[in-house]
């Protein structure tokens, strides 16, 4: 086997690393965003260069992260999914609770290259599970969007043999 096509080829390794990092960051940031919310502050509006004396205010919203703002499944989707007969309420609650942390955990393991194949497979399962909900709600655009993610993960799994830059080697 020539060096160019061998599993230790640098180009293939860097290509895989790029794909792994993309999937990792996609998962981590998506997971973190599930803890995002906004804090609104009312401030007095300025008239003639000074805060007005009437009490007129405008809202200034600031993005914040906290456990209180956690929403695994966005509220509008949650409401629609809770009405789906194929999705039991308890399963939806559990899924809502686990989705954000799962994305962050598997994203971190992918980022550092810890059990890369298992992490990729688990991330692929998450995107498959998300697809089920969108199929039920007939959101075809979303299904296609998730399908692209699944294809990227499958591509990464095919090329996992090039995984040279990892903390823990996956066999």
């Amino acid at each position: 086997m020539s060096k160019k096509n061998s599993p230790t080829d640098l180009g293939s390794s860097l290509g895989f690393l790029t794909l792994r990092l993309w999937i990792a960051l996609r998962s981590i940031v998506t997971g973190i965003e599930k803890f995002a919310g906004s804090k609104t502050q009312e401030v007095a509006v300025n008239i003639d260069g000074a805060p007005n004396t009437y009490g007129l205010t405008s809202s200034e919203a600031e993005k914040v992260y906290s456990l209180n703002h956690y929403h695994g499944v966005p509220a509008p989707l949650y409401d629609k999914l809770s009405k789906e007969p194929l999705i039991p309420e308890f399963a939806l609650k559990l899924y809502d609770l686990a989705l954000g942390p799962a994305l962050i955990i598997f994203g971190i393991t992918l980022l550092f290259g810890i059990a890369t194949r298992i992490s990729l497979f688990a991330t692929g399962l998450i995107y498959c599970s998300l697809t089920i909900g969108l199929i039920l709600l007939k959101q075809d655009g979303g299904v296609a969007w998730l399908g692209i993610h699944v294809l990227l993960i499958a591509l990464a799994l095919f090329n996992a043999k090039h995984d040279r830059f990892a903390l823990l080697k996956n066999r």
Partner: protein
Amino acid sequence: MIKRRDFLRASSLASAGLVFGAPSILSAAAKSAPSDELRIGFIGCGKQHEVLFNAMKDIPGLRFAAVCDIMKYRVGSSASRIKSLFDYVPNRYLHVEDMLSKETDLDAVFVATPDFWHAPHTVMALEAGFNVYCEKMMSNTIEGARSMVQAMDRSGKLCQIGHQRRSNPRYLFALDYLINGEKICGQIVNVNGQWNRAVNASQDINVKESILPDEQTLLQYGFANGADKKLSLAELRHRFLNWRTYKALSGGPISDLGAHQIDIFNWFLGTQPKSVMASGGRNYFKDREHFDNVMCIFEYDTPSGGARAFYQVLTTTSAGGGYFESFMGTEGTVEISEREAYTNVFRESGSSRNWDGLVDRGILTKVASGQAPGGADAIAAYESAPPDKYAFPGGLSKPPHQPHIENFIAAIRGKAKLNCDARHALESEAPIYWVNQSAETQTTIHFTPEHLHT
């Protein structure tokens, strides 16, 4: 013996002197001291009571000491709400006389009963020595409203009427800054106001019978007033829940919904109208005693010239922009509503004044330049160019009733003057009492001091 509320007023003035110039921590401690707490009683615990309570629950220094309603269920609900928010239970009463005689250390009572009880309850509370905040319309009769002014004068107590727009920063800004200060309207020649409400929001109220007062109580509290026959229990209960539709119990939609807005006409124009002509009908709710739709025109002589104000209250459609009061002048228009979404400011295309400076100073924000609708059906010779659209620079971040209640509370503490005491409220409300009569008789009523005096 010095009553607690007399002591309160004296001690608040004294403590104001003591803390003057003291470190801020001392001032803060004085503000939260129990002696500074005002004790509040509620007469009437229905829907409007809920609105008022929600608007005052965040005002510091209040203790909700007593609640009263002839409907036991409402008394319990109100007490539970107070308990859940403040961890204490108010004293509960079914009869006003009981509450007023036993709760001698109240600082103020809030009256939110049916309109025909406003005057008796307010007069009783004032004469018992309490400051009163009473919901609008002052009464279902002008005589009742006048009795409230007299009781306020006799007792020397404060009596604020719930025309809450009078304390709304947006309305104060519109009047002081835009209309009187910058005179952006030019000469106001027309006023247009409306409250359009859909049929489904105007339906009769029904609740389960088991929680309603018994027949004896409903008779005792006048819910058979104006009936020309003996009423069944079902009829009495209908009157109790839907008193707004009966002539002897309320002033109807023109008073219920129109009072707030016609008050703004008179307040902003700074004068009372000189006549009213009205038309009304029972076109959809045919069994109701009051008109379901009323339209009326008031004529004014203002300091800057004559003006007409059109007002309509419709309980059969919500189309046409909801509810607003529009002050239409030769240079611009201020269209204001308690809902910010219905509030707009327009600059006439031919106005000689450039408003860019107002935008630069933060007085207005520009929304859009006027755009002609165009199209083949436009009759260019007759149409004027559309006005530019502007918006207020900010809004109100509290429930709409809160500033008015805060003004009342500040007045009790001696730190403010009432924004709408009973006399000023009646000066503004008096023309409204004649709208239904004008519509019934299909005549123009030219107001005399006899019609409008307080």
